[in-house]
């Protein structure tokens, strides 16, 4: 399937090209400069890129994730058929249905079951565990001289930490990452049949894995989120499909975007060496530095919403049922909101970016992602005297819905 946007002036938007993967920001700027949402014909969707418009839609409760508020079941099935979402029974049951794609009562009820584990106070109590985990990992890598930061470091942390919160043993995390990536890749705008088969198979294996884990917890309950969710299921707060779907969503979220932003954040520090030096000299800047990494290279740059009422976006009227594509990556470089938006500034404050979205669907795992990143960057800057890029131009993942380097080879010199 091609994926080109042709605006009224004939200008193309080609988010599946290698050029876009390497640097999407000129294309985002061109869309933003048009001032109004732009129609993306292949997916029947209006792309929104200005900060104020993206923030307003993300925070508006009349803008929803699921089309069920204004489409009949037949219409939804027909739309799914057109977009190649059907004939994948486990994916439809556990992935296409989720907290992320629910609204209103269902969303609020599911979020309520899990939010406690992701609040500031609970996450702060995980700091010691994360520090010990990262120290040990860095011990094993520091003598190597050269590493792939994405595979050997970034990919080893967030998935293991979310696994521990949920109750997944460390040794199962690599497999969970493979499943997560296969499931998530299918969400991008090029839904090939090959990706579809992989996504369905991965969801099926993931489901059977979770059934086994739940059976173990049934025999021997633990102090973990999966045990607590099973108690919530017993109390009638959610059903088994909702429980499986929620566990998958949390594990997939934990295995993907934080890895990507760790990679792009490290790359940003290397592209702006004055900022790396500034952070080394003043480690107290770590909080603003991490905020800036999320703004500068938002790891999940694209989410959709449907309008449930007639609405006005960027001064233009749209009918009920319009699908909007929110480009967080574009909004977070909007010069109307951020001074020198293409400059990476580890001290930027305030930094009210939209990388975690907004409104009811605001990223549940934001505090955990930030703590993982804080521990990793603080540990590395303390233990290494220099970090340098091996390949001058690391390759980035292709697609509209993810942003992060595929590989980031680094030369390390211990302190």
């Amino acid at each position: 399937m091609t994926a080109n946007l042709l605006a009224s002036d004939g200008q193309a938007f080609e988010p599946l090209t290698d050029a876009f993967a390497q640097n999407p920001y000129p294309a985002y700027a061109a869309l933003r400069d048009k001032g109004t949402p732009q129609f993306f014909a292949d997916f029947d969707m209006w792309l929104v890129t200005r900060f104020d418009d993206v923030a307003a839609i993300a925070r508006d409760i009349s803008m929803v994730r699921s089309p069920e508020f204004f489409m009949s079941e037949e219409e939804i099935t027909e739309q799914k058929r057109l977009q190649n979402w059907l004939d994948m029974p486990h994916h439809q049951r556990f992935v296409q249905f989720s907290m992320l794609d629910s609204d209103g009562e269902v969303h609020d009820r599911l979020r309520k079951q899990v939010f406690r584990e992701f609040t500031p106070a609970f996450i702060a109590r995980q700091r010691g565990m994360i520090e010990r985990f990262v120290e040990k990992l860095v011990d094993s890598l520091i003598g190597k001289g050269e590493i792939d930061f994405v595979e050997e470091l970034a990919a080893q942390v967030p998935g293991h930490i979310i696994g521990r919160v949920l109750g997944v043993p460390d040794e199962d995390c690599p497999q969970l990452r493979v499943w997560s990536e296969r499931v998530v890749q299918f969400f991008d705008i090029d839904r090939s049949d090959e990706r579809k088969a992989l996504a369905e198979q991965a969801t099926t294996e993931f489901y059977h894995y979770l059934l086994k884990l739940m059976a173990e917890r049934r025999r021997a309950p633990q102090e973990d989120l999966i045990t607590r969710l099973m108690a919530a299921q017993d109390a009638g707060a959610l059903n088994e499909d909702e429980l499986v779907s929620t566990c998958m969503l949390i594990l997939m979220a934990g295995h993907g975007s934080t890895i990507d932003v760790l990679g792009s954040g490290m790359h940003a520090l290397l592209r702006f060496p004055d900022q790396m030096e500034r952070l080394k000299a003043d480690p107290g800047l770590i909080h603003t530095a991490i905020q800036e990494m999320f703004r500068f290279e938002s790891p999940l740059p694209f989410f959709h919403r449907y309008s449930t009422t007639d609405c006005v976006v960027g001064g233009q009227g749209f009918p009920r049922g319009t699908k909007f594509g929110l480009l967080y990556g574009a909004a977070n470089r909007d010069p109307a909101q951020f001074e020198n938006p293409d400059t990476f500034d580890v001290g930027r404050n305030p930094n009210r970016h939209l990388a975690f979205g907004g409104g009811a669907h605001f990223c549940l795992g934001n505090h955990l992602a930030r703590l993982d990143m804080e521990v990793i960057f603080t540990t590395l800057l303390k233990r290494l005297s220099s970090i340098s890029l091996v390949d001058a131009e690391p390759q980035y993942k292709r697609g509209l819905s993810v942003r992060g380097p595929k590989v980031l080879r680094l030369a390390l010199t211990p302190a």
Partner: protein
Amino acid sequence: MYRVTFIDADGQVTELTAQQGQSVMSVAVANGIDQILAECGGSCACGTCHCYVDDAWIGRLAPPDDSEQGMIECLMNPTTRSRLSCQLKMSDALDGLVVHLPREQY
């Protein structure tokens, strides 16, 4: 127009005006009170608009609903005066409200 006063962790006082129905969070964000992060934009979903209502005012506020209460219990350093400023809407009854700001939200 209503008045609302913010006092930060160092004792710095900022007096601002607010419209009927405007949340204390949005007054803060619109006027550069940077300690109120309010990352979710007012959906009671992030816990980064925490404030402490002044002793003189706490008894005059309607108590938090279940979702706000659930979030308050999981904030950093919560007290009996803790509220999410996105859930406090300005009205005649709150004219002159005084809130204290935490040093950090997380």
